[in-house]
Every structure is written in structure tokens, then in C-alpha cells.
């Protein structure tokens, strides 16, 4: 049953050291505010799951919050590498990062299987790929009707899924639209789910068959206007395309990265303050 609480309370109460955490989003509705709050509260030993880890996972990996990453494509979208992820894998800094690697189709199916409370998913995939050689979880299964050999992959059942959506009503029913990615499946696959939203409204005024998560299927709903920055929330604000190449520069160097994280995330109280400090440092740089 969703409670409408502050993001600080939600993260404090629902995300624990050692948890498997999925912060999902497919370049739209990235739960950036929640990612920062997890960093701010100093979580450790997390297993991070996401099809497309981007800046918030680069940040969590770079400050050493993650023990393991389960993913299918890790990059700075439209720019290039995630330097903190790369350095963790290539040099083990700040500590070795265990990697469990899949394809998009696999993880999408694994979330579907998780939401459906099944232990595994069946798909046609991985033929000829070396991925099953480095990931022992990628098995095969034989169709009992046709004899066809298909890929079998374990379902994803995160301890916590965190997503960002456009709005919720006062009971905590959540509505999202546009590119909704795997967020619904990730939310329903998890033991606990936190949703940050742009706003709380009296009535959702959702069109028929809209993508809605009922409040009783969620653990916490938190209001975080602009909480998807530098990603976008369709109908609210656009993507900040300049931040992604800027992040490339920040994250290339360990010290620059750590200083940036301290100044903007660890030493700020919340996402609103982060945005204010970011505006200040950007203005200072331009001035």
C-alpha cells in the first residue's frame, strides 16, 4: 500500500545495504532524484540492475555504492562511455565491480517473468553469441511440443524498484505515458517499489487503457518535481541535452568526479538543492 512520503524517508525505509535495486527508465523518466538520494544516504554493497545504466549508475558505481551490476547496455546515451563504470570494470576502482551481463531482450523478458511471478523466462535468443560463455545464468530449455531449443533466463525479482512517473493522485495511484520502457514490469517484479512523480493531483484524468500503477501495488510515492533531470518527463520538461556531454567531462577523472559528487550531491540536502547548486556552478563556469 503506497504511502505518500518524502524521498528521504522512502529511501531510508525501503532501500537497505546489500539490496538488489533496479532504477529503471529508458532515457525518459530516469529516477535521478532517487539515485542521488541513495548516494546521499551512503548505501553500500548494492546490486544495481538496469537494462540501460546511465549517469545515476555511473555516480553510484563511482562513489563505491555498488558491489555488482546486472545490465544489458551501459553507456552515456548519445555521448559514449560511462567512465566510472569503465574504470570500475577495467581497473577495479574504487573497488572491483561484479558484472552480470545480458541482452536487452533477455532483461525485458526477465522483468516480465518477474512481474508474472515466474522463476524464468523463455525467449529465442543468444544463438551464436559469446554471452552465455561468460554468464552461467543463460541456459537453454527444450519446447515439450516442438523440440525447439530456446534460451531460458532467470526472472528478475529486485528487492526494490525505483521509477519516476508523471503524476499520482492523492491515494498514490500513478500514471505515466510516453516512452514507458520496462518500468511497469520492473515495478511489479520487485518486492518493494518507490515511485517519484512530478506532481500529485486530485484526479489522474487518465485516458482509457493508460499505463497506471495502482497505489496498493506500490510501497511509496514521493513528489520530486524535475526529479528526472537531466532526462525528461513528457508533458513537463525536455531533456537537458547539454548535461550528458558535460557529464562525460566530469566523470573522466576520479578527482573531478569525486569533487563534483561531494559539492552537488553528497553536500546538498535534496534534489532541489542539487539543482540550485548546479545552476550556480554552471553560471560560475560561464561567468
Amino acid at each position: 500500500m503506497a504511502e505518500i512520503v518524502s524521498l528521504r524517508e522512502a529511501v531510508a525505509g525501503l532501500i537497505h545495504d546489500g539490496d538488489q535495486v533496479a532504477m529503471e527508465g529508458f532515457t525518459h523518466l530516469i529516477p535521478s532524484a532517487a539515485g542521488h538520494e541513495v548516494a546521499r544516504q551512503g548505501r553500500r554493497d548494492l546490486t544495481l540492475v538496469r537494462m540501460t545504466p546511465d549517469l545515476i549508475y555511473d555516480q553510484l558505481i563511482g562513489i563505491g555504492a555498488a558491489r555488482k551490476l546486472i545490465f544489458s547496455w551501459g553507456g552515456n546515451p548519445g555521448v559514449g562511455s560511462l567512465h566510472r563504470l569503465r574504470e570500475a570494470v577495467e581497473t577495479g576502482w574504487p573497488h572491483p565491480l561484479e558484472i552480470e551481463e545480458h541482452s536487452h531482450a533477455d532483461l525485458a523478458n526477465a522483468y516480465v517473468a518477474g512481474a508474472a511471478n515466474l522463476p524464468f523466462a523463455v525467449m529465442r535468443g543468444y544463438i551464436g553469441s559469446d554471452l552465455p560463455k561468460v554468464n552461467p545464468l543463460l541456459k537453454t530449455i527444450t519446447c515439450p511440443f516442438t523440440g525447439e531449443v530456446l534460451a531460458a533466463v532467470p526472472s528478475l525479482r529486485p528487492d526494490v524498484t525505483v521509477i519516476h512517473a508523471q503524476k499520482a493522485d492523492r491515494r498514490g495511484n500513478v500514471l505515466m505515458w510516453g516512452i514507458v520502457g520496462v518500468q511497469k514490469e520492473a515495478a511489479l517484479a520487485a518486492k518493494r517499489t518507490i515511485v517519484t512523480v512530478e506532481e500529485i493531483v486530485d484526479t489522474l484524468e487518465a485516458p482509457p487503457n493508460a499505463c497506471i500503477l495502482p497505489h496498493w501495488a506500490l510501497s511509496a510515492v514521493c513528489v520530486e518535481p524535475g526529479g528526472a533531470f537531466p532526462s525528461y518527463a513528457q508533458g513537463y520538461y525536455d531533456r537537458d541535452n547539454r548535461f550528458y556531454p558535460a557529464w562525460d567531462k566530469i566523470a573522466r577523472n576520479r578527482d573531478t568526479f569525486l569533487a563534483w559528487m561531494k559539492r552537488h550531491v553528497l553536500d546538498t540536502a535534496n534534489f532541489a538543492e542539487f539543482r540550485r547548486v548546479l545552476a550556480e556552478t554552471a553560471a560560475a563556469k560561464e561567468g
Partner: protein
Amino acid sequence: MTEFTTNEMMTVAAARRLKNGAVCFVGIGLPSTAANLARLTHAPDVVLIYESGPIGAKPQVLPLSIGDGDLALNADTVVATPEIFRYWLQGGRINVGFLGAAQIDRHANLNTTVIGPYDRPKTRLPGAGGAPEIAGSAGEILIILRQSKRAFVDRLDFITTVGFLDGGDARERAGLKTKGPVAVITDLGILEPDPVTRELTVTHIHRGVTREQLVAATGWPLKFADTVVETEPPTETELTALRDLNARTAAAHGQDQGSE
């Protein structure tokens, strides 16, 4: 004929391979530029599907990310990502998969995972994304990447995405029923799999490029088809459409995204 860059030639040559009405699974970057150029020129009815969810996307400018809002706003419909992979790709409804890669070998196998050993990589690349299943389930595959010895390698450190494996009928023997790669379009020319050995063989050379340049940019002893033709240079219409698209994109995103 207007002057054109090798990147422009590559994008135009790739765009031409998309037939009007084809259903195309598009990756961000070079494939997305080529697919949208096709849509804006000879193939107005091409159906562009992005793995984030848009079906029939008609972006006004090139998306910077696989989930740009413009992809959703102008699409015929937007579905969840699992549905894209389950009902549309695995469902067998994609005619053409358009892929890029960091590295390719002579049998069009692709690496986007690591350079060096998997456990101690020299360079950690982004990973598989949608490519392994696109390569297996799309009717045919077009590959677009710049040609260089770093990218066109004798032996891949990691096969992320299947092409023709060891060549010959290895792909069929592995159980794949789709065609696989039908062309690799680069900034120097076009390579197509030999009908028997499935080794990538030069069939087209772009204007102004020499065989020696192609050989020098390839990490294996490159073969040429019996008949190698010069790629038809970009037409005025194609160049204008591409440059307008890039200019609109740069203006919209507030930065120069180059001609990719």
C-alpha cells in the same frame, strides 16, 4: 555534383538499402540517421521501430537517445519495451535490423562487449543492448560503421552478436532461420557476404576511394568481388535532405551533432 564527405556517402549508401514500406528496427547513431534519411527521401512509408517503444516513429530531428520524446510524440503508437522485443522483434515482424558495432570480423560477427579478455578488459564497451536478438530475429541485417583496422579485425575478442560465425552454413547450422547480414556499409565502400563462404567481400567502392585504402583499413586479407562498382554518389536530393536533417538536429539540440 556537389562535394560530399565520406560520412555523407556512407549514410546515403546505407539509407538506399532500406526499401519503402520495410519495417526497420533502428539503433541510435549512424543507423538512425540512415533510416531517417531513407524515410525523408525514397522510402516515406518505411516503419521505424526503436527498442524503447515507439512504432512508426517519425522524428522531426535525429534523436540523441533511444528514448527521445520526439520519437514518442510522432509515432503511430508507443508500446512497452518488453512488447517491442517479444511481439514485434521475436514476433518476426521486423524486415530489417540496422546495427552498428565497435568491431566486426570477416564473417560479420560483431563485438560491442570488450576489447581484451572478458575478465580483465583493456576496454569495456557498452555491451549487447538489443543486437543479439535483432541479429537472430530480424529478416535481414544492415551494418553501418567506419572502416579501420581497429574496427575490422582478424579475430574478435568477443562475439556479442552473431553474423555468419565461421562462415559457410555455420549460421544455418546454429539454428538461425533469418538471412543475417546482407551488407556492411562503411565510409569507404560496401561489403557483402560471399554467397558460399559468407566472407565479407567488397562489392562497391565509394568515389575517390582506392582498393589500397580499403585493404589498409581492414584487419584481414580483404577480398574483392569479381565485379566491383563505384557507389552511385549522393544525389542533390539526398544530400540536401541529409544536410537539412543534420541542421535541424543541431538547431534543436543546441549543439553540433556532426553528420552521423
